[in-house]
């Protein structure tokens, strides 16, 4: 698998504030990455550095095999950071033609990409007349003009209405399905959970985790159980070594697994003991729960 971006020991200081601290990670081709972190955790700064608009204080980063200059590499990258930036007095077509000139790609993809983001019928309107959602979609079209090796999106749904958010997500999914590598920075966890296979989690400029979303916590998931015979159920669970922790809340019992077990096995052994369940669900922690657990652990 080929590497698209390698970041090693990257540090950025703004005066006394260290925005990014000794950050290292790699982006491999074909995956969908999420950079997660609360506001001010250094996501945008990191992206700014690799995109050549913020100067690093120390550390290195290399695009592709590291043999080409950053601005040449960026011609093979599509990126949108924070807000869509275009010339307000120019139409969508004119703006995209300019981008083609900068990226040194032919102009024949313009219509196709405008179609993809649903702006073809507004192609001759000035950028200043667009709504925020349309501006963001135009930005995505512009980022895709060169059929990039990697698409970088920084908070692409920020400030959009639910409909706009949905549209952007659909476009991202469409792009991801074509095999394009995507790097999505966001503080919206469900957004990342829905589309990403890998995550890099940042807090105060430091990396807490990077790897597959599934491997984020060494966890086997948990059962949510309900029974009319709550006491017997609790005793059973507490005496079973497969469960590390059992909690009870509003009659709903949550039992965390310490080893792999499927719900069929649990159900059968409970039946053998004469405990009948009225509710049985096996779940994994959501990204949000994992994220909060991870950031909390580190805080201590």
């Amino acid at each position, binding site marked *: 698998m080929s590497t698209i971006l390698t970041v090693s020991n990257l540090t950025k200081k703004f005066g006394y504030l260290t925005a990014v601290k000794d950050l290292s990670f790699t982006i491999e081709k074909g995956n969908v990455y999420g950079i997660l972190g609360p506001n001010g955790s250094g996501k945008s700064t990191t992206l700014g550095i690799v995109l050549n608009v913020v100067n690093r204080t120390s550390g290195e980063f290399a695009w592709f095999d590291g043999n080409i200059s950053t601005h040449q590499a*960026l011609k093979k990258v599509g990126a949108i950071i924070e807000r869509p930036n275009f010339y307000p007095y*120019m139409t969508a077509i004119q703006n995209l033609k300019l981008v083609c*000139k900068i990226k040194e790609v032919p102009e024949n993809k313009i219509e196709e990409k405008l179609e993809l983001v649903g702006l073809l019928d507004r192609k001759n309107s000035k950028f200043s007349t667009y709504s925020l959602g349309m501006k963001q979609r135009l930005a995505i079209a512009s980022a895709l003009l060169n059929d990039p090796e990697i698409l970088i999106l920084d908070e692409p749904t920020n400030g959009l209405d639910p409909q706009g958010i949905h549209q952007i997500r659909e476009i991202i999914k469409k792009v991801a399905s074509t095999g394009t590598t995507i790097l999505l920075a966001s503080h919206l966890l469900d957004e990342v959970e829905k589309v990403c296979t890998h995550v890099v989690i940042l807090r105060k400029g430091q990396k807490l985790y990077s790897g597959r979303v599934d491997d984020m916590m060494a966890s086997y998931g948990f059962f949510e159980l309900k029974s009319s015979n709550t006491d017997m159920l609790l005793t059973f669970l507490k005496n079973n070594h497969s469960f590390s922790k059992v909690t009870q809340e509003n009659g709903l019992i949550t039992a965390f697994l310490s080893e792999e077990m499927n719900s069929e096995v649990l159900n059968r052994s409970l039946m053998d003991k004469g405990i009948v369940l009225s509710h049985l669900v096996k779940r994994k922690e959501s990204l949000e729960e994992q994220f909060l657990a991870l950031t909390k652990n580190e805080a201590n």
Partner: protein
Amino acid sequence: MLRLLQIEFIKLWNNKSSKILIISYFVLLCCIALISVIKFPLGEGVHLADIGIFNFPYIWHFNTYVAAIFKLFLAIVIVSMMANEYSNKTLKQNLIDGLSKKEFILSKFLTVVTFSLVSTIFVFGVSMVLGLVYSDYNEVSIIFSELGFLFAFFIKLVGFFSFCLFLGIFVKRSAFALGFLILWLIFEQLFFGFLGWKITGWDVANKIKDFFPLESMSNLIKEPGTRLDAVKALGNQVGAEFSSDYYVHWYEILIVLGWTAIFIYGSYALLKKRDL
């Protein structure tokens, strides 16, 4: 190089106000020709063209001097083409799209050089036509003498526009950058006055003044009025002596080229240092 110019051309030509200013600038350059019809109400009326302002080679001096006044129009365009990149944040987007900082500055500088070159060609054309119509001397050797003024005009524009470019990057807001330009003009004079009055004495101050950016640019083409025979004759009558040296000197060109290099490199250094 052509690509960088095309990029800049797309940005400028699609902007309505830039387009209007650029067009009016070149129309104004052509309007130098209108001077020829100005008539002074002396006796039965004296045509300005008849007192020799369109004689070769004097016309090169006169027209470049007058044309340089209009450069303010393009200065507005250049300052705003730079400052707008900041206020629209398109500078950031350009860099992300794969333009290097060097290419960005180069594209602006090439535009400045192109503007200056086209202006010079325009002034050459207009002067040539006017001269052929009105000049008393039409020998080829006379026509093509003193073309140094055209070269100086070109260098002067490149220098001045580079200063505007630098101000655009430095101040980031077009209105403030233009204000700063005027402030700088006043500052140069104040500084000169202060030098002469308190520190070095007037002789030395006059020499130092030639090294100031704006002063060195305006020095390239000195005022042509007192070189006219008619004005000289008038001066002699009242006993005034004009013994200035009107020609363009190589060291004056060098000073302006020096400032141009400083401004362009300064813009690049500023851009490189800044986080966007």
